[in-house]
């Protein structure tokens, strides 16, 4: 989000977007599109398919998907998996690694001895460089190797359980940073962190309730929540092209509470228009047992697979607000004020 702010301001003039689709996934899409469309910003997009973001790029680099390249990935539960190449990537597509290395070679990046700055070439060499980089740090991959990963289905870094002795990485000489105050993002100094004297204990931080910056009111009386369906991942770049998944959830919908639907004269299946101060979305209503006063729209749907329809009225993030949590930097996707009417 901050990078996009810098691009908006003009202090970033080259943006390389890799395997992500901000023109559908970030809040307030009209703003995101207008930033990406600026003449003074040179946008490169690396992706396996032409996304909504790719449509706004100056250069698109087609990339290989899993199955077309070898590498590891780590799940949210710390499990590291090795994914081996099964087929050649189509057309001109190359793996991100090959593209990065080509870019580094063309830039002529060298170390002090005049040797290439990047010593690694193959996926396994990259992984081994990361093992060394993380050795002895809180997130330590040094015990994992390609050979070990080929022996089973996945290995958790740090072992099956962390902190089994009740010892947390809060030693000031070892921890990754000194943390933040949660409501403002104020960073703690080393001195303040040391004064906590955590000494291997975990640090639990309280935070008071803070109302949303955009509470429902007279003009926009309902609260928008955006989220997911089990059939799609993020902006459907891949799941939208899997016929079974696409068939199960082909288009956007607007979920409403029974009482709100009755008050607005909306029945299940009616096409409704949802508006916030930033944009609008249209889709069929689903009247469900959800909480009164709340509207839900899945955020997966963008514009690449619309048959002939124009206009930006399908992506839930047309409606969301440009703001993020000050400590985690996570955008605020779960609350914005909207109004709903029959379209």
């Amino acid at each position, binding site marked *: 989000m901050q990078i996009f*702010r*810098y691009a908006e*301001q003009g*202090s970033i003039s080259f943006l390389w977007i890799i395997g992500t689709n901000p023109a559908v996934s970030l809040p307030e899409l009209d703003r995101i599109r207008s930033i990406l469309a600026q003449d003074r910003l040179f946008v490169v997009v690396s992706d396996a398919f032409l996304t909504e973001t790719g449509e706004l790029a100056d250069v698109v680099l087609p990339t290989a998907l899993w199955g077309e390249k070898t590498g590891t990935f780590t799940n949210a539960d710390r499990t590291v998996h090795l994914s081996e190449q099964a087929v050649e990537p189509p057309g001109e597509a190359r793996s991100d690694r090959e593209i990065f290395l080509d870019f580094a070679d063309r830039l002529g990046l060298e170390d002090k001895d005049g040797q290439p700055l990047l010593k690694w070439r193959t996926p396994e060499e990259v992984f081994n460089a990361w093992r060394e980089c993380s050795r002895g740090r809180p997130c330590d991959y040094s015990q994992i190797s390609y050979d070990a990963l080929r022996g089973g289905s996945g290995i958790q870094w740090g072992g099956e359980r962390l902190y089994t002795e009740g010892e947390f990485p809060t030693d000031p000489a070892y921890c990754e940073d000194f943390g933040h105050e949660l409501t403002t993002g104020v*960073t703690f100094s080393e001195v303040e962190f040391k004064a906590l004297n955590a000494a291997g204990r975990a640090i639990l931080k309280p935070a008071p309730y803070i109302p949303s*910056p955009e509470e429902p009111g007279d003009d926009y009386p309902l609260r928008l929540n955006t989220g997911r369906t089990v059939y799609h991942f993020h902006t459907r770049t891949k799941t939208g092209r899997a016929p079974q998944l696409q068939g199960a959830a082909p288009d956007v919908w607007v979920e409403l509470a029974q009482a709100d639907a009755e008050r607005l004269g909306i029945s299940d299946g009616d096409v409704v228009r949802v508006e916030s101060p930033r944009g609008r979305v249209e889709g069929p209503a689903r009247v469900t047992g959800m909480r009164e006063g709340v509207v839900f729209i899945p955020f997966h749907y963008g514009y690449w697979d619309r048959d002939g329809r124009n206009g930006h009225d399908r992506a839930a993030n047309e409606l969301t607000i440009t703001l993020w949590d*000050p400590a985690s930097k996570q955008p605020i996707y779960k609350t914005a004020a909207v109004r709903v009417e029959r379209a």
Partner: protein
Amino acid sequence: MKLGPALKRLHEAELDLAGDFRKIGERHAADHDVYHQSRTFSMQCERHAELLGPIADRYGSSVSEDDAPGLWDSVMEAVRRRSSAGLGRRPVSGVVLLRDLRELYLAAHETLIAWVIVRQGAMAVRDKELLELAKELQRETDLQMKWALTHIKVSSPQVLAS
């Protein structure tokens, strides 16, 4: 006893700081995090001033209550927000932001000092109610100051090196 004038001074500092946060936040409406956090802080300062009012009265230094924003203020507010949309697209907006954050840091520091003085005074006259209040609100002022400093640290590299 001079605790009354010290409270009045603090009351003024809080209202000034509330105005600074409001004005500067609006000027940087395109920096959404600055805008929203400044608005929150502005309301926090106003609450501080509200809580201080009756205590200052009790110590014989009444604070005037006609500080509510008038028509002129709301006109200026709209102008600042509108012009920030234009400013927000220009690289110079970063330099202006740094200057403004510096001003906020200093103003918050000034308020913090006023709190320290009042708190020491409250201890001397054994005013437990004021002491409790000072402890709680001073923490918020301290956070306001540190927020400005954190933002200065975050913003400087991009502003200066670009």
